[in-house]
């Protein structure tokens, strides 16, 4: 039973770190629907680097670097060129999906390194994820940097007038957000399931995107949501733990996706948003005219 719980928490780590990245970007007003693409880049590049050098550390650093780079590209399209953020994000996703399929294909198969040692079956990334959750919460609620990022996402014009460089703040947040997404992808491909195959994330990035909406932009709710989805994912892989021999294993695989839709619907009802919806950054996804 503990083994199952540990495995669920390890799965949740991927969601937590990637979704935290998305949360930071969204707080500054930049929506990145291409989170799956950034994660695919991080996962694939991290996998290749770790496999060729034999070093997990280098793999993770490479994933963080490529994640930041790809997100900077999204930032350039969305902040500097001022395009539709959904179109740009879709571009990032399809770029990641297409290019990593080509780049990663020669490395198809298991990573073949000794597993990263953990504590009681928990990977060290889980503790890192928890630390990052606390850090993000602290940054947004206690520091002036957090306030700057939040105000850029709420009302960029007023923020600009009060002497904060919105463009720079947004670039900073978007790049940091991409680094976390890249790391999240690498945790999947290096620690959670170290085998490469085409498009192996199968929608995890989109679940992480939905998680940010669920979380009402609160890192702790996001952490709880990630654990819920990590557990659901693990259950869908091992249905015999709860309901042996009921339904095919393929049907179980659909469960996390069905639940994502259900929770997303609950979050978007009037009943819910009138109570909690105020947390949404006002300027999220809106292109900004340079004055």
């Amino acid at each position, binding site marked *: 039973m503990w083994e199952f719980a540990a495995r669920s928490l390890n799965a949740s780590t991927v969601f937590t770190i990637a979704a935290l990245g998305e949360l930071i970007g969204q707080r500054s007003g930049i929506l990145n629907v291409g989170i799956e693409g950034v994660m695919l880049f991080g996962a694939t590049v991290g996998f290749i680097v770790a496999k060729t050098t034999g070093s997990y550390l280098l793999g993770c650093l490479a994933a963080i670097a490529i994640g930041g780079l790809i997100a900077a590209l999204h930032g350039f399209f969305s902040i500097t060129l001022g395009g539709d953020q959904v179109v740009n994000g879709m571009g990032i996703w*399809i770029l990641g999906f297409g290019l990593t399929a080509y780049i990663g294909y020669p490395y198809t198969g298991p990573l073949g390194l000794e597993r990263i040692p953990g504590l009681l079956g928990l990977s060290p990334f889980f503790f890192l994820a928890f630390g990052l959750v606390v850090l993000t919460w602290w940054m947004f609620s206690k520091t002036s940097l957090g306030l700057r990022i939040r105000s850029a996402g709420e009302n960029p014009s007023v923020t600009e007038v009060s002497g904060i460089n919105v463009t720079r703040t947004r670039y900073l947040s978007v790049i940091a957000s991409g680094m976390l997404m890249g790391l999240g992808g690498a945790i999947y491909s290096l620690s959670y399931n170290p085998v490469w195959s085409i498009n192996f994330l199968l929608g995890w990035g989109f679940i992480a995107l939905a998680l940010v909406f669920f979380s009402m932009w609160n890192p702790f709710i996001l952490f709880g949501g990630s654990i819920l989805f990590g557990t659901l994912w693990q259950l869908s892989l091992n249905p015999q733990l709860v309901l042996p021999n009921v339904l095919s294993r393929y049907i179980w695989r659909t469960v996390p996706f069905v639940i994502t839709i259900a929770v997303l619907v609950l979050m978007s009802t009037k009943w819910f948003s009138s109570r909690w919806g105020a947390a949404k950054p006002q300027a999220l996804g809106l292109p900004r005219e340079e004055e």
Partner: protein
Amino acid sequence: MRLGSYEVKLERKVRVTGLEATTISLLAILIGLALVGLIFLQAGVNPLSGYRAIFSYAFVNKFGLPLTINRSVFILLCTCAFIVPLRAGLWNIGMAGQLYGGTLAAFGVALAFGAKDPQTPTLAPGIVIALMMLGAILGGALIGSIPGFLKGRFNTNEIVVTMMLNSIGFWLIAFMIKEGGPFMGGGGEGQGFKLSESIFAPMVWGGTFTIPIALGVAALLHFMFAKTTLGYQIKAFGLSPSAAKYSGISPQNVPLLVFVLGGLIAGLAGYHYFAAVPGVYKIPTNYGDFGDLSFYGIICGLISQGNPLAAIPFALLFGGLTNGGRFVQGQLQLGYGIDYALLGVLMITLVVFQFFYRNTIVWKKMEREK
């Protein structure tokens, strides 16, 4: 900004003419292809001979051309499925899930009328074919109605919902065709049953009859957007949902309607590839590849600026590129997945070029300083 004696300035565009849009789209494709040329170079292949091999297989070779056309029809239908919600300002990235739904319904109909046991036909083949198509349309529309309804009723993010439905559809097909599922075929493991010859889709002028159907769908959509109240309502909603609401357009019905229409067309795409393309006539093991191929519909829809007729030549081009790309990667010892790389690179160049739909660069010679 100053460049030499010129001043370079950006100006917002109010309108884009058809000629400008075409030029921008073609430039985007050319630059995308040039970037993929770098991949050819890196793999030690001369890009020009690489592209010559791709295009000659895709458009000249007598084995390659029919494959290109079948892929293009598939991409065209996926593009139409993407365009209808796009005109209403909504993103349908669930063509994969919708075409899986349509495919399952079409094969369900075939199974119900004795496809596994061709000795005892229950209905005339023509009727079964018509019912299969009807099934495909309804199956696709059913999956499409989910994001449409949720968007209209609760304003639920349609991107996440359609993407979740893609994964759900993927596993549902796996359930149906693998490990003793109801659609499992007799011979090979992990693929669906083969249709009996009597219910193969009919051929018109040497091609499948789904080719004229796809062209008809594109033409009908064009007519709908250009001439009908419905098309006007969809476009008005796309420009401003709140303004549309005050002019009496239901903000609940439009999302549902566009997604049902989109799903219906995507269902046809599933019917086309799995039940009408010669040599397939079953749900193959690699059905997921066609879900991936459906994403070309996004690029094609964006590059044709939501115009279904303009999408036809682009669909043909992309059908050829993916088909030829698959072929040459074996012939020229390129890595697997050159068609995926092309998908990604084309998409991102297109995103960059979106900028030029909105802005023009103005060059002005500066007056000499006195």
